[in-house]
């Protein structure tokens, strides 16, 4: 079995169920769908307007929550030393970790997003686009957020630091993604937003692992 494969299986096992997985997605959207009508007022037409965008809000915040443990847990128990001393480069380690993070946390959130949006009154015709943009955007969140997680290794209040580093990076995908959904609903050109979102996520996947590996090396020295 290759190092790549065993690491991928381990990362899936570590993040599925513990701080990730379908349970996180469901509870997050349940909380949002309950609190949003209380916060904005229960008028159905008003809720229907904010519903698609709030799916993005939940996705971004849930990504932040689970990112804190991504590198920190391996740093705390010494496993990051071991991961560095494998025959697989540290860049690939970071890539695998973020990919597993996306599959166990981002994907369930993306798949649950349309259900929450419809429950809040969004048009069901939007649901495929909500799920698709959330899936693509979640990939960007995982890889961009991973940079913040790697940079904050060893700091006691890692979550705060990650939020500060990562929130500006999270702004573009939210604008492109939520913008595409809004444009689609209004019958305008929505493909541009989707393409920009995809470009953002692909850039994060391509460049993020190098930044994460450098940050990990720095933390271990």
């Amino acid at each position, binding site marked *: 079995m290759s190092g790549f494969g*065993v690491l991928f299986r381990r990362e899936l096992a*570590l993040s599925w169920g513990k701080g990730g997985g379908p349970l996180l997605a469901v509870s997050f959207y349940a909380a949002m769908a309950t609190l949003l009508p209380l916060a904005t007022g229960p008028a159905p037409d008003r809720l229907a307007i904010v519903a698609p965008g709030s799916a993005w809000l939940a996705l971004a915040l849930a990504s932040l929550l689970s990112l804190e443990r991504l590198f920190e847990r391996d740093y705390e*128990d010494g496993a990051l*030393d*071991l991961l560095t*001393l494998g025959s*697989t480069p540290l860049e690939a380690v970071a890539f695998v970790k973020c990919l597993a993070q996306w599959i166990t946390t981002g994907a369930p959130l993306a798949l649950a997003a349309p259900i929450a949006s419809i429950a809040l009154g969004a048009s069901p015709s939007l649901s495929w686009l909500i799920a698709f943009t959330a899936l693509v955007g979640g990939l960007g969140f995982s890889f961009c957020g991973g940079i913040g997680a790697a940079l904050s290794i060893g700091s006691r209040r890692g979550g705060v630091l990650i939020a500060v580093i990562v929130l500006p990076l999270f702004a573009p995908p939210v604008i492109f993604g939520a913008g595409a959904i809004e444009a689609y609903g209004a019958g305008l050109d929505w493909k541009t937003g989707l393409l920009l979102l995809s470009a953002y996520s692909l850039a994060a996947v391509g460049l993020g692992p190098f930044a994460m590996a450098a940050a990990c090396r720095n933390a*271990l*020295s």
Partner: protein
Amino acid sequence: MISALTVTNLALARGDRPLFEGFDLIVSAGEVVALTGANGAGKTSLLRAIAGFIRPDAGEIAFTGADGVLEAEETRGRDLHLLGHLDGLKSGRTAWEELLFQVHWTGGTDASAEAACTALDLGRLRPLEVRKLSAGQRRRVALARLVASPRTLWLLDEPLTPLDAAWRARFGEIMAAHIASGGMIIAAVHDPLPIPARAVEVGA
């Protein structure tokens, strides 16, 4: 495969505090080196510098193979074990899952992991979660990785501390077998190792 490690004129610092300078060490295949020195002298830092984690302020660390000098980065990823104070075991997973991951990650196989389990008598511990193991048991799981994945240079930081007398002796036999097959061991210790070793003082 590493046949010699050469440390030349090494200077290390942690932050602004210099640990030592002008440190020389040559270790060749079949040798055991016991690093001694006071707390904070830089034993752990030296091991981590050899493993490539800490960049030296001055000096060189070179690995030599049968055909000359080896590429350091690649050699570290393939032929070196570092066992520090932390075992790198995830508390929520079973001992066997963690051992299997560590063994595969460092180049071993299912069969070698099974063999290491027998060598370190881990049979009954395998299905237990790591959080339920004692410090000595955890250390045995971590040591099993060294046995299961064939790597030449072992860098050990206080490897014996949590082990009882019987397991210290048993680990002495394991180290002797590794040395007999052309391996090298550099161990930071306060207590003497259970096998003959060349003592090198750090920060003297």
